[in-house]
């Protein structure tokens, strides 16, 4: 019962959020196309969260935790889920330098193929720290857009980088809010306005 109440409140909060975002602002958001390749920068389990978010947003997505350039074939968007987990790196048999090199190669390959980069930081405040911040600093400037769960940007770290590099930044109250954001970012012009459903809730 409490869960459903919370779900209801989440949807209401989301509706309020979309009501509060001016139409012209939403129109200025960049557009992305799927299929998208979702990969990690830092091997945290947040990449799995992104996979479920994409599924619920109805996007055609491939999740590959340690994706390589070869996996960019037929991909229209590269989604990079940033956040370092020492446990995750250990399980993947990688150290941070190797992980950074892998992601660098992938991002460079995406650039050369004109595949836009969407950066996501979903782990909140707990997924910050020196190592995560290194990757955030390294890859945010290459992004066409950045999505961050608000508690991860309490100190304005993402805001500062995005303002300096003129990358649009979308802050979310909760991870689950990314479903509607992704629907909006990946909508095509001939599809109906996806947040109509929210507004008419």
């Amino acid at each position, binding site marked *: 019962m409490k*869960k459903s109440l919370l779900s209801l409140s989440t949807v209401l909060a989301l509706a309020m959020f979309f009501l509060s975002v001016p139409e012209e602002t939403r129109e200025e958001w960049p557009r992305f196309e799927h299929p998208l390749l979702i990969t990690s920068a830092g091997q945290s389990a*947040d990449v*799995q969260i992104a996979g*479920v978010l994409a599924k619920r947003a109805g996007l055609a997505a491939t999740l590959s935790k340690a994706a390589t350039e070869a996996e960019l074939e037929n991909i229209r968007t590269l989604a990079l889920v940033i956040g370092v987990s020492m446990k995750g790196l250990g*399980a993947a048999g990688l150290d941070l330098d190797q992980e950074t090199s892998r992601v660098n190669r992938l991002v460079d390959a995406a650039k050369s193929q004109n595949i836009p980069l969407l950066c996501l930081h979903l782990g909140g405040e707990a*997924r910050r720290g020196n190592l995560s911040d290194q990757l955030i600093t390294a890859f945010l400037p290459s992004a066409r857009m950045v999505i961050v769960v608000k508690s991860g940007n309490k100190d304005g770290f993402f805001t500062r980088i995005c303002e300096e590099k003129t990358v649009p930044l979308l802050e979310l109250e909760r991870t*689950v809010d990314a479903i509607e954001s992704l629907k909006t970012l990946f909508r095509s012009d001939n599809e109906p306005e996806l947040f109509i459903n929210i507004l008419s809730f």
Partner: protein
Amino acid sequence: MLSAVAFFFYLSGCQLDHIEIKKPPKDRHQPYNYVGHKGMVVAAHPLAVQAGLEVLKKGGNAVDAAIATAFALNAAEPFASGIGGGGFMLIFLAKEKRVTVINYREKAPGRAYPSMFLDKGKVKNEWRNIHGLAVAVPGALAGWNYALEKYGTLKLAETMERSIQIAEQGFSVSETFSQINKDEYEKLLLHSGESSPYLFDGFPYEPGDTFQNQDLAKTLRRIASHGWQDFYNGGIAQRIVEAVQNKGGLITKEDLSSYTPIEQLPLKGTYKGFSLYSIQPPGAGGLHTIQLLNIIENWQVRSWGFNSPLYIHHMSEAFRFVFADRAHYLGDPDFVSVPAKHLISKNYASQIAAKISPDHLQDSYPPGSIDKELITKQNTTHLNVIDEWGNIVCLTQSINDFFGSGIVPTDTGFLLNNHMADFSPQPDSINAPRPYRRPVSSMAPLILFNQESPFLILGSPGGTRIFPTLTQIVINIIEFGMSLDEAIEAPRFFSYSTQGKARSLFVESRIRPETILSLEEIGHTVELRDAYDKFFGGAQGIMILSGQKIILGGADSRRDGAGEGY
């Protein structure tokens, strides 16, 4: 000598009735000692502390309160321990002046075999961690019931009331819970999909969300009405067997029905004027803590200074030698010979101390090797209780990794352990899986006595960091004069060896940069961890002063540790 201890005795002698009890600080990392005069509970979640304290205030003894706290932890900190796991309980019976151990560590199924984690000759780590094969026969409920029947005053059902309420009504999720939930998301999805009872509408819980577990509440109610045997020989047992076997595991109904905890004598050591009691192998943490303290007795650590380069270097080298012994000698003593007496002898410790050089690392750390994978585990939980009669329970238990194997028997709401991963995957190891064996554990519930009186009760989760962490806390108090919680919150470090070679030195980032530079100059590869990193455990302690007129509690802010006295 023993400045901190002397200070506390002085304090307690002068100001018994005038201790100002301050509220816990807003900054949870700021050292804070809970104060009591009759009894105290410290545990990894405030709701669990309340559960234990209620029992004490109603006249229950330390065993009653410890079991109530353990049940409550299953509801409030479900990712670290519960009825799907096992552990060790160290009990001090004040009237008899006797320490006893209840070993309710999980056992391998009867069909376990040494090469069960090899696939075409290669170690298959997913089988050890997130597969039905990873699940060992749980011992927690049998152990808690044994303790209650023999040393408690309450019925099992009476100790479960608060845990049922916590599971039913829920509680606000902490940062710690949320982070661990996110970290283990993949495992939870793997076994239960987006409908896992440990996910909120398919996603990890965010801080502030309400976590409820109606399935667990129903399971606990069932145990309360049908008795604990239902878990081992009834409807719940059936669900465990189905869940494990559906995921490729080996546990049978016979494995569950034949499980029994065992009562053992404690392991005893000394450090200077203190006596130290802990658990016997396969709980290796107590043995290694005694071993480390014996080695440290050979050094003037106080003159080196707290967390000085010389201190951290010597300690790290000692850790590496101890890890070599752990891999070579430790197994289930019911089946193999463990030379505990030799390993905790002062003579052996002085031999190790003599090998350690102040200005360089050793070329090798003989003998043996240790599985590197064990190093990443954080998990487990620890609680301490003292009652008004001076009885003590010091309990460490676990489901191994956070969220255990990730397997939840259908509609039961509890997690099954993955403690089979504590066996070595190498068939020729002394700690290889074999039928009904208990895997080696790093758990180390400790009670230190100052002459005949209990002085310090201590334990921690943290996998292989448990005994290095506990050793550091003991030294922080006895040698560096810190208060209990100051000693718990102080920056920690850890190192180990595998196959005779030194591995990295992990340090919390609060350790001074110039110290780190000095350590690197000596030859250590230093890896920085977070300032307060749960990688190094989540210790809970109780300090008893002036004949139990003052009881201090310390709870680790690296997790959600809390305490309360009365």
